[in-house]
């Protein structure tokens, strides 16, 4: 008797989930089709559905920058956008920066300058720095600090991160090195 009542209650309580959507994303130059519920963030789509765990879930509230990726070349917080809203967009994660075995200059510079300690924020820092470079708004060390402020480093590797970014700017002949 009791079992039946429980079952009835359960049936009453269960609400059908909304249908999933087919979402097409171009991730690191490869087209990916995913079947996603609307509430899946871009971050979760990358980590949980595509196995790209280089992008980190730090705060999941847009406050730490660990989830930074490039969407159509621009850096954003992947935790604050829904994957479904990025339909058709070109996503670059930390896994997509190297060309084969050749690291991206920003990755090389982070190694050269020891621009990390634990490394957890590093993928976000590097993607953010690549975005900063293509924006072309940083003209000096102060600008780099200001425009990288969306990436928190709990280990405090900031000095070396700024040095790494300046180094790559210098390589590119950017005026932002002094």
């Amino acid at each position, binding site marked *: 008797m009791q079992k039946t009542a429980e079952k009835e209650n359960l049936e009453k309580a269960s*609400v059908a989930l909304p249908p999933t959507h087919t979402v097409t994303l171009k991730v690191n130059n490869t087209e990916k089709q995913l079947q996603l519920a*609307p509430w899946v963030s871009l971050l979760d789509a990358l980590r949980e559905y595509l196995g790209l765990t280089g992008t980190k879930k730090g705060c999941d509230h847009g406050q730490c920058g660990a989830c930074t990726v490039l969407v159509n070349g621009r850096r954003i917080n992947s935790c604050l956008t829904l994957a479904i*809203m990025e*339909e058709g967009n070109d996503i670059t994660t930390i896994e997509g920066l190297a060309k084969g075995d050749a690291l991206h200059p920003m990755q090389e510079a982070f190694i050269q300058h020891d621009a990390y300690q634990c490394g957890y924020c590093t993928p976000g820092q590097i993607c953010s720095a690549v*975005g*900063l470079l293509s924006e072309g708004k940083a003209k000096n060390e102060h600008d780099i600090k200001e425009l990288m402020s969306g990436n928190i480093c709990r280990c405090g590797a900031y000095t070396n991160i700024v040095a790494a970014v300046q180094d790559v700017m210098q390589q590119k002949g950017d005026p932002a090195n002094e």
Partner: protein
Amino acid sequence: MNSFTYFRAHEVAAALTEKATAPQAKFIAGGTNLTDLMKVNVEQPHHLIDIRRLPLNKIEETEENGLRLGALVTNADTAYHPLVESRYPLLAKAILAGASAQLRNMATNGGNPLQRTRCYYFYDTATACNKREPGSGCSALNGYNRIHAILGTSEHCIAVHPSDMAVALTALDAKVNVTGPQGERVIPFPEFHRLPGDTPNIDTNLSPDEIITAIDLPTKGFAENNAYLKLRDRTSYAFALVSVAAALELEGNIIKEARIALGGVAHKPWRKPEAEAQLVGKEANPENFAQVAETLLAGAQGFGHNNFKIELAKRAIVRALLQAAKMEEIS
């Protein structure tokens, strides 16, 4: 996050029709604040209408020699637009004082003024909050209220509006173009946000079924003499404790026109026309600026932890006006 359904609109009319069929639905564009609020269950929409791909993504000159900022242009693209940089540098400075580069790449011009307060109690669903749950009470009144309002408060809410962009738009007398089931209308920016009164759950005079299509900047941009001074606990990527958008029109050192709007002190960007009128015809000097600061802060009231904001705001006003008059270096 609660379960919800999703619809992507490509035309304004389609977005409005969708909203009419699902009145409880929420519009989403940049999503930087709404997504976050959904994660903490402050917002629980059952349906989202994605308006990010509506054709409202241009910055164009208006016939009145002003500038029309499309609602879906990102904050970054707006702040770095050559015409904004050259004619409305106050707006560019205010936008760049807010958030981070990543967030400015996502957040839109229509969405920025619609972001909700960062009052801790509003975010914490375990506490009472009249803005989140009308009638439940205000936990900030007798709680930890260091970041809260000192002007225009009510017994129901002492939250502040967090936007920097909105402070500059208020000072510049921008206009908000909206469209809804009743057609189009224009809301002057200083009248866009509301004081809390006994309905702190309603932040703005935009109706829930309306969409912001553009923000218009008038001809006058005060490009020569302006400053946006933002004071906060760290020098980047933090909300304002107090901010000041100051704009002057000078003839020699005599003030012809002044605009002053404050952020971080009230439920809306704080502006007082009588304070601005007080400066007209006066010399730009620290004494006159200090007098106008007194007028702007008249009636200010602290709630314990935020008492410091009253003096901080007065000093910030003087400093921002000195910076606008180029009598003090921008720091």
